[in-house]
Every structure is written in C-alpha cells, then in structure tokens.
C-alpha cells in the first residue's frame, strides 16, 4: 500500500507539473489578450512531433532546445498573421480561429506522421531505473522530466518577478488596458508572450512525448483537461493555475490507484432489482471514473466559487 502511495504521488506530481507547463502559458496569454487559445494543446503536440523528428535527425539534446523554439516561432506566426487580423472581429472570432487551428493542426500532423503512435524513445543516456521503491523501478527519465518542469517553473517565476518584461506581463494580468495606455508596444509584447507560451507548451511536448504517447490525438485528449485546470485555478491567476495543476494531477493519479466503489463500501445491492441507474452508480469503481473527475470538479467549483480557486476577475 505504501508503495502504491509513493509511486502514485510521484506520478501525480509529475503529471501536475506537466499540466502546469501548459496552463501557465495559457493563463498568461488569456490574461493579456483575452484569448482562450484552443490550439494550446496542439502546440504541445507539435512540440512532441518536432521533438521526435529532430531527435531522429540530430539527437535528443539539440532537439530539446530546437523543437520548443520552432513551436514558439509557429506560435508567433499564428499571433502575427492570424489572431491580430481577427482581433477586430471580437473575442469569439479569435476563439473560433484557434478552434479551427486546433482542428487543422491535428489533421496536418496525422497526415504527415500518421495516425498511430510514432516510435519516440527515451534517450539512452536516461534509459535506466533511477531508484527502486520497494520492488518497483522508477525510470530516470521521469526524474529528468520533473527536474525540467521545476526548473522552468523557477525560471518563469524569476522572469516574472525580476525582469522588465515580467513586470509588464504582470501588470497586464491585472490591468490589461492600462499597460496599453502607458505606451508599451502591446502588439510586440503580445507576440512575444504568445511565442513564449507556445514554446513552453512545445517543451512540455518534447519531454512528455517519449514518456507518454506521441500520436495525433494527444492534443484532443489533453486539451479539455487544460481548460478545466485554468478555470478551476481561477482565470488569469498563475498561482491558481499552479495549485490546480498539481491538484488535478494528483487526483487523477490517485483515483486510478483506488478500487473502492459504493458497492464495496456499503455492500452489494439487492440483485433482484436488476440493472438500473442506481446499480450503475453503485458498482462503478473510483478508478473507472478517474477521467470524469476533472469535469466533476469543474462543475463543483463553478457552483461553489464561480471565479475559481484563486481567481479575482469575473471575466
């Protein structure tokens, strides 16, 4: 049991940090530009596939640097030539543009790399068990993922608190209009922020690709959970996104580890009743509902605290 708890905690924190790499970029972009980037998870997928392709050509370590930069460049191009032109039609049009983009990126990726998972492997330098908890090996690569995520988190924190750009971004989080009024080149800041946000998503893709699965539906699988994270944490709140990422990461991992159901807690239902909604709910295990849990949390938080965990703004 203890073994399960240790492993699950490690896995949960890892998944949570990965979610944070994505949700941080999404939150900053949303706060500044008012755009919910539907294609954010698609940039994560692009990162994984660029990482895979570059690893094949030039090796994993150069790919780790190059692929996120490439994704960032794609992001900047999307902002410059897509979103900026659509801005005049309002936020709904911008949101729809990113929706169409997410759709198109998935199709392009599956057209080039196919529908089935690609063979994106952990680099040999990191392909060994880091340590053994009880009898289970914990792969070194996962430790590496954790390290990178934490490093990025710290770097992001420093960049936001200590640099001039960080100051502008922070100001834009709470007073987006004022920043524009103060005469900053809002267009360029937007493009930069969008690029950095996409690059972070790309980085998450590069490091998650070998450990999880790299295939063309990975964006569609992760995207909705990402939105749950940023609504749950409170729109526009970075600390909120951080807490929500970890929380949802842990909840999902632990739910899988648990076997309990109402039937095991209170005993089986009278079998003469036959199948009904009640018996469905009664017999379902927590592990089975793990993928639904984030959405249940979303609905709950919206009823109890509509602005999210640490959110301050109503929109």
């Amino acid at each position, binding site marked *: *049991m203890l*073994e*399960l708890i240790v*492993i*699950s905690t490690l*896995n949960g924190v890892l*998944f949570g940090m990965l979610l944070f790499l994505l949700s941080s970029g999404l939150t900053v972009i949303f706060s500044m530009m008012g755009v919910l980037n539907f294609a954010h998870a698609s940039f994560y997928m692009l990162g994984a596939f660029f990482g895979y392709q570059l690893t094949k050509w030039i090796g994993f370590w150069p790919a780790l640097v190059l692929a996120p930069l490439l994704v960032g460049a794609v992001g900047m191009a999307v902002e410059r030539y897509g979103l900026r032109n659509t801005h005049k039609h309002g936020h709904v049009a911008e949101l729809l543009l990113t929706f169409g983009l997410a759709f198109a990126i998935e199709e392009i990726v599956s057209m080039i790399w*196919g*529908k*089935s*998972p690609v*063979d994106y*492997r952990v680099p040999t330098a990191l392909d060994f*068990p880091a340590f053994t908890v009880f*009898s*289970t*090996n914990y*792969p070194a690569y996962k430790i590496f993922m954790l390290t990178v995520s934490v490093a990025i988190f710290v770097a992001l924190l420093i960049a936001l608190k200590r640099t001039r750009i960080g100051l502008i971004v922070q100001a834009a989080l709470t007073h987006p209009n004022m920043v524009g009024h103060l005469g900053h080149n809002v267009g360029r800041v937007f493009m930069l922020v969008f690029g950095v946000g996409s690059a972070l998503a790309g980085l998450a893709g590069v490091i998650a690709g070998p*450990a*999880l*699965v790299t*295939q063309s*539906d*990975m964006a569609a*699988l992760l995207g909705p959970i990402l939105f749950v994270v940023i609504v749950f944490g409170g729109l526009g709140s970075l600390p909120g996104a951080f807490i929500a990422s970890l929380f949802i990461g842990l909840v999902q*991992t632990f739910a*899988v*580890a648990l076997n309990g159901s109402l039937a095991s807690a209170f005993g089986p239902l009278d079998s003469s009743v036959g199948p009904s909604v009640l018996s469905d709910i009664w017999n379902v*295990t927590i*592990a*089975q509902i*793990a*993928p639904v849990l984030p959405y249940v949390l979303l609905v709950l938080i919206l009823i109890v605290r509509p602005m999210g965990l640490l959110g301050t703004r109503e929109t």
Partner: protein
Amino acid sequence: MLKITRVIAVTLPMLSGAAYAQDTVKIGYIDPLSGGGASVGEGGLKTFQYLADELNAKGGILGHKVEILPLDNKTNPQESLVQAQKAIDAGAHYITQGNGSSVGAALEDFVTKNNTRNPGKEVLYFNYAAVEPSMTNEKCSFWHFRWDANSDIKMEALTNYMKGNSSIKKVYLINQDYSFGQSVRTQARKMLGEKRPDVQIVGDELHPLLKITDFSPYIAKIKASGADSVVTGNWGQDIALLLKAAADAGLKVNWYTYYAGGAGGPTAIKQANLDHQVFQITEGFANSGDEAAMEFEKAFRAKVGLSLWYPRAVNEMRMFKAAAEKANSIDPVKVAAALEDMKFDVLDGGSGIMRKDDHQFFQPIYISSFGSRSEKEPFDEENTGWGWRLVSKVDTPQTVLPTTCKMTRP
C-alpha cells in the same frame, strides 16, 4: 485519391439513383478510412482488395467479377448506416465490416430491418472482426455471418490452455471499460473459476477506452498485487502502452492477450524486451507451419507490404465463393442458405464449420508467443526481427460453445 471532377461524378449517382449493371459482385467494405482507426481500416481494405484480385484472377465468382467498394464509416455507428445505404445504392448485396463492436451491432440491426422492409433487395453482412458475443447470441440475425471467433470462444480456448499450465497461480485482469472488455473480464472470471478453481484472481481492472496515455499507475497496482499472469483484451494503443509501462517499471509477468499482434504491438513488445512472455490467441498466424498458409503469407507480404492481420478474411472470401458455387447463384438469400452448416478447410489448416444455429464460424484456434525466432519461424513482425511461435493449438471441437440464439428465418 483526389478527383475534383469525380466529386460530382461520385455524389451525383447518389442523388439520381443510377442503376448499376449486375455483372459484378459488389462488396461494401465499411470501416474507418479516416480518423483514429484509419491505419487499421486501410490494412483491412488492402487485404480485401488483395483477396478480390485473387478471386478475379481465377475467374471471379460464377464468372462475376468481384469488386470491393471502400466506404469510410469513421468508426461511428450512425455514419456506418449511411455508408451501408450508399453501398446498397451502388448495387452491393454484401457488406463486410470488422472494426468496432458498436458499429457491428448497429449494422446487424440495420441489415435485419432493411431485409424485412425491402423483400427482394436483401443484403448480407459478413463480419470479419467484431467479436461482441451478443451478435451471435441474443441479438443474432439470419443475415449476419461471423468468421472471427467471438470473445467467449477465444476465452474458452485460452482457459483450456491455462487449465494445463500449473505455473499460473495469480491472475490479474485488465481490460478496456466497454462492452468487449467487460465480456472478456466476465468470461475470464467464470471460466477460470470452473476450470482452475485454485487460481487466484488478484485484480480486476477496467480502464477508460483509448484515453490512457500513461499506464504506470496501473502497472504499480499489478505489481502490488503479486500477479504472475495478466489477461487482457486490450487492443490498439492500449496494449502497446500497457506493455511499454510494464517494461519501464520492470514488471515480469506473462501476458495473455487477444490483440498484442495488432499494429504497434510487436514493436512495443520488442522495445520492452518481453521475449516469449506475451501470448496471443488467434485463428491463425504467420508462422503457423502450414505450407499453403505460409506460401500465401509470403505472396501477401510481397504485394501489400503488411503482414496478414486477418486470416479470417481469407476464409470469408474463399468461403463466400464456395457457397455461391454451391447455391449456383449470387443471390444473397441463396448464398446465406448455402453458408449454413457449411464445412470449410481454413487457411492455416484444419476444418471449420459455420454453425447454422447462430451463424458463428468455428475453427482451430492458436496460442502463440512473441519473441526471438528459430528456423521454424520464417516471418518476423514490423521489422523487429522477432516473430510469433506456436505454443498450443486448440482444435475446432474444443472451441464450441452453446448459443442462446433464437433465429428468425425468412
């Protein structure tokens, strides 16, 4: 194939209902050709086209040319019904489908209703891979024929093998949370309980279908349970990722699977270095040792560039020809009557029978393991260098299960 000019040419007949000449036998192939299941659907399509070419080279069926109509159902039941209608409009009296039990059930229902409502325009549904047991039990139809062993039959064969293997003591069940996965799990519990009451079932897991990207939490549970064998009906990425996570965590168990041989599976097994620890249960495989089958496999691989995933498709098409010749007609009703209780020598050797009571085909079933090869195993998979090796053969009589089908006949 983009043919702008043919967009109109193809879609207009749909609107004008042009009559097609009856000099070809058209078979509507309804499976995913776009979306997530496309790679599997394309493989099946190539198989059927290869088989049609083979029949045509020998003069077709009763002198009629065989033509396969590819129809994309996007693995969606509703879409499949639309495509089935398209096939009928194009003059097809036979449809074949395999991927997705939900699609299979919808098509079986559609064919039954269509044939009752449109007498004289009957359509037969040849099922080559949808293994949901209910399709030949409570939901059975006269117009549906299944060449794949349904999941209960496979479990019967598998547990018959496990009965004789005393090293199996603790079994863990992990399956996809949907009708097929659930029937695997239920039957495994029931049959193991009857045949090996001493075996302990230490875990029984259902996980969401095709949604898990990291199986390590599940592997941690299997490890904690102390199981020595895992039984799983997982397919697609769910089997590949499961094995990958197992290798990462250093889990050493034997895997009894239905679909480890599917696309991506062999690569995952090789990567995980599970030499002859992954077993698969099929109606045939490349290294089965049968001369003719291996000859066929060789020719097939050379032409199509894939290994033969569906030996049952070969049985289906060849048996269709035999039945049409027996009935001396390509009329679906007569062919259906001829198929009932028809005996047929299957591709990998041995005899099979299409049972009249439920239209389920019974055939020899093989259990094979994947790993390094000897000279008896000439074929490898997915360029891994590893191949399937025969572990056990279960003969037709040992696979027969009773049916609850009460068939209404025309």
